[in-house]
């Protein structure tokens, strides 16, 4: 996280993304009660992470871009070529799009060796058997699984299968690469390594990439830009550092581990929507969001006397053990609920338990206030 001012940082230039080789799409998809309405522009070379809860429409967006699903309305352009435009009855099927995809469970063809899986797309696009295998071999070497070239998919570990799937998608040199939860099926240890390698391969890949994930860490490490979807709509779009510092919805705030409060600012005071008044460091006016980390919240058994401007009384509503800290949820009547991170020894000394009365305090200077 960078400590910059409150001016929102713009992602890389997004104008004329499609003309420069990138993707420009207005995605309108209706399936019964479910609607997706997403405008997406990804310049060539940019890696975008689509982050969102289950059912937000992330995979639907990917399938529409891949051509596995038709738009209800809107259009998709890739490198100046119209791929889908229902109004003009234009639809380029998946096999003619040059859009690569890495599926969540990889979908490596079980009857083909790793090498033939990678060669499949090259063969389908007209390469001769020898040439396809030679190129596939280079790709397997590049992703580091050459020694498993002759293995069937069921003989591969999760990490190896993920690499083969990535090589298979990249070998056809797509203009756009789509990745649907590419790390979700991996265990924690493998994930760390595969995530770093994936980030490197995506940086080397020259085209646009859209990655679907619900893991904020994947998005932060791999992507140049994060787009958050909720219920089929974009709720936040920005650089990873910006999303991590200034979440715009409760879902994003939870993901990045911040307290997020809404209110209306008048000078150094913010009247909170959920009740109460908050002291902030920089004077603000109008509807604002206030974010502050749970680590900056202090808990007390008695009314504290100190420099912290924000002091509320409440009770412990929940305690949750994290890696080395305990996250306490404090319900303060007349105020929004707030998360506080404390050490286990503090829990013991203050005799914190669910239902225990506490005072919480946090400094105005620890809050980050930005326009709603």
């Amino acid at each position: 996280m960078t400590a910059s001012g409150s001016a929102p940082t713009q992602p890389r230039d997004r104008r004329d993304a499609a003309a420069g080789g990138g993707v420009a799409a207005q995605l309108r998809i209706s399936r019964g009660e479910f609607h997706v309405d997403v405008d997406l522009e990804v310049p060539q070379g940019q890696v975008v992470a689509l982050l969102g809860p289950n059912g937000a429409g992330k995979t639907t967006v990917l399938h529409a871009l891949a051509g596995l699903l038709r738009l209800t309305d809107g259009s998709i352009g890739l490198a100046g070529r119209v791929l889908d435009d229902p109004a003009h009855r234009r639809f380029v099927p998946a096999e003619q799009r040059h859009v690569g995809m890495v599926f969540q469970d990889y979908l490596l063809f079980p009857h083909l060796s790793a090498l033939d899986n990678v060669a499949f797309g090259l063969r389908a696009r007209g390469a001769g058997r020898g040439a396809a295998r030679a190129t596939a071999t280079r790709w397997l070497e590049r992703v580091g699984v050459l020694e498993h070239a002759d293995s069937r998919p069921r003989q591969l570990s999760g990490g190896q299968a993920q690499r083969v799937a990535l090589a298979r998608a990249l070998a056809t040199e797509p203009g756009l690469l789509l990745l649907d939860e590419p790390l979700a099926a991996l265990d924690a240890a493998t994930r760390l390594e595969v995530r770093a390698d994936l980030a490197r391969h995506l940086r080397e890949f020259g085209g646009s990439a859209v990655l679907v994930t619900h893991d904020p860490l994947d998005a932060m490490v791999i992507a140049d830009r994060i787009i958050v979807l909720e219920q089929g709509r974009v709720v936040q779009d920005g650089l990873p550092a910006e999303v991590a510092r200034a979440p715009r919805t409760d879902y994003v705030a939870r993901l990045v581990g911040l307290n997020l409060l809404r209110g209306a600012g008048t000078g150094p005071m913010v009247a909170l929507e959920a009740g109460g008044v908050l002291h902030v460091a920089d004077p603000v006016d109008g509807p604002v969001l206030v974010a502050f980390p749970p680590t900056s919240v202090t808990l007390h058994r008695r009314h504290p006397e100190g420099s912290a401007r924000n002091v509320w009384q409440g009770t412990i509503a929940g305690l949750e053990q994290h890696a080395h800290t305990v996250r306490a949820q404090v319900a303060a009547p007349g105020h929004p609920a707030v998360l506080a991170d404390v050490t286990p020894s503090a829990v013991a000394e203050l005799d914190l338990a669910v239902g225990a009365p506490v005072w919480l305090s946090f400094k105005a200077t620890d809050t980050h206030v930005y326009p709603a």
Partner: protein
Amino acid sequence: MTSREQRRGSGIPPVLLIPAGLALAFLLLPLVGLLVRTPWADLGTHLTQPAVLEALRLSLVTGVIATAVCLVLGVPLAWVMARAEFPGLRLLRALITLPLVLPPVVGGVALLLLLGRRGLIGQHLDDWFGISLPFTTTAVVIAQAFVAMPFLVIAVEGALRGADRRYEDAAATLGAGRWLTFRRVTLPLVAPGISAGAVLCFARALGEFGATITFAGNFPGVTRTMPLAVYLTLETDPEAAIVLSLVLLLVSVAVLVSLRGRWVSGASS
């Protein structure tokens, strides 16, 4: 819970054990009878009789051709039934499986009425091309394919429905058109189902009797397949009939064993 175990152990009413044993004996004793009466010493002589060899060769050739016909026509039909959505699909499936339950002799009559010299299509074949199908080896293949195709279609349709269609999506994103995807992805994925269907189909074709004798008749070397030969030689040369029956029994056992293997490997993949 030993008491419950004991109660369950003694829970089978003895009155059921008797018919169960009878059923087992009823199913197995005829086969034992066949094996007991088999002239093992003269087996080679009987097997090399021209009439036996002729029937054996005809059955194998027609059975293989009928299976090939069923594969070429039945796999696409199974694909359409597994993938297409249209009104009347259930009715279509019922009609396709009708030959499974239809008495084969009725199938033979129906084929005769369609393809016979005075049949709906057969009269034109005769008038325009001078082709007469009944009582030819082709008729044997047609009769066998007619009764055996449903076995293949049902097996392949089930395999296609069970196959993960997202593999086809993956193939499409790699640039494979529908035909290439069908050949290189879909067919290999359902290969266990296709081979199981083909084996069932071949077994049914090999055992075909009613439709064959009705539509193709009984001419040695032309339409007299093994089941027909068994039936006819039973009067004149019972030992030859027994030997032919033994061959058919062995083929059936081989089919059963191969199917079991396929189903096990199909379930694990």
